[in-house]
């Protein structure tokens, strides 16, 4: 049984990564969005380093949330349209593993690049260097939670393909991640202990990994009824 589990996970992880690499434009879009809106902030507010560094923790996290929200919409809808979702649901094994595989792939394609790109924005917003490491850690863990929760919303809104409805469903659920994610950066900037909010983020990840696949599984099975 163990073999079956890991097989489903790896197979879907590998395929979705391959698809992500082949569709380069889809991969790059959220990242460009992330950079672009970040570049708007100094223009709209003021290019003063002090003010920007005050805003940085919150702004980086808000844009990370928006970038994942943009991309999570298509997590299952492509599969629904070409029929591979049906084949996935027909798999005799536990569906949780393929689902987790797909979400992991989504994180590798979206969350990880965002994390790696975030120091650039840190520099733009004159974020103190001591806060860069905590910021990357918080984004790495936090975007994984965002992918998981976003996938629940994507599964439930499949028949009508997300859009504003997806944002309405998912944003309130994103709130804790947003709060603790920006708190990690803020604490690091203020020279406080930032491991506590990071630990809470990790706890949220643990809860999400355990519960979200169940909801996604149930949600995907409804898509055909739509």
């Amino acid at each position, binding site marked *: 049984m163990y073999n079956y589990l890991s097989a489903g996970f790896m197979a879907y992880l590998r395929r979705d990564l391959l698809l992500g690499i082949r569709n380069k434009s889809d991969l790059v879009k959220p990242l460009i969005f992330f950079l672009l809106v970040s570049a708007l902030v100094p223009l709209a507010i003021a290019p003063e380093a002090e003010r920007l560094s005050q805003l940085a923790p919150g702004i980086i996290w808000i844009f990370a949330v928006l970038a994942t929200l943009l991309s999570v919409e298509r997590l299952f809808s492509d599969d629904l349209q070409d029929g591979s979702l049906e084949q996935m649901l027909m798999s005799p094994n536990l569906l949780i593993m393929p689902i987790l595989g797909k979400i992991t792939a989504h994180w590798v394609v979206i969350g990880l690049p965002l994390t790696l790109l975030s120091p650039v924005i840190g520099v733009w917003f004159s974020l103190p260097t001591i806060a860069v490491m905590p910021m990357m850690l918080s984004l790495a863990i936090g975007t994984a939670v965002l992918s998981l929760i976003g996938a*629940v919303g994507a599964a*439930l*809104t499949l*028949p*009508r393909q997300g859009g504003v*409805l997806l944002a*309405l*469903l998912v*944003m*309130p*659920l994103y*709130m*804790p991640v947003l*709060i*603790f994610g920006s*708190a990690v950066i803020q604490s690091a900037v203020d020279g406080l202990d930032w491991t506590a909010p990071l630990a*809470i983020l990790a706890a*949220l990840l643990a*809860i999400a990994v355990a*519960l*979200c696949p169940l*909801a996604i599984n*149930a*949600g995907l099975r*409804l898509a055909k*009824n*739509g």
Partner: protein
Amino acid sequence: MNLNVKWTWFHRLGSPRWFYQKTQRWLPWLSLLTLSLLITGLVWGLAFAPEDAKQGNSFRIIYVHVPASVVALAGYYMMAIAGAVGLIWRIKLSYMLMRSAAPIGAALTFIALVTGAIWGKPTWGAYWVWDARITSMLILLFLYLGVMALRHTYSSSEAADKASAILGLVGMVNVPIIYKSVDWWQTLHQPATIKFTGAPSMHPDMFMPLLVMIIGFYAFYAVTLMLFTRAEILRREYRASWVKQLVTNKTAEK
């Protein structure tokens, strides 16, 4: 499907017809109780309770704000549990209850938000302050709106019911997390401004009318939930023979 035999009592409870007929009998009494509780609470709270030492008379808003918030929050759990019961035992009635609970909860949350904002003006000097309780209420409103909006995603009502139930359950796990995180976030950013008076420190003269109002709001919730569910039953069960019978009897009376 093989449940029908063993669980007859349970299924009778889950029968829309049973609910429709019982509530017909309960509603007058329950409405009377609700009305008297609300009127007692209102008059007591508005005219007889003493004013708060710090906040003066504006504190009387507590008599709608707190009951509305309490019932709105409890209503979310009610809705989610009704959805879960529907998912597990496939009882249509509990889906109808879930569906009816959403607009009521949203309206109560709206009341809590508006009264909170009005209360904020004399207390903090601004209509909106990012106070922990008000922020959580705002998020709760979005959660309710999400459940209401999701329904239109599905053309089949069975799928819509199940999807709303799943979303409700996900929300139910999240509500305490959201509350705790917003609470924590507030202590981080705004140490000790005036908080809306907490119950334990309240004088009994102030607390008793609040208690009456809270009970009154629960009763009000029950009444509106029954009203909404009865309309929903008619909407969905229009094919059932007992509904047709009911309608023909009514027209005959006229």
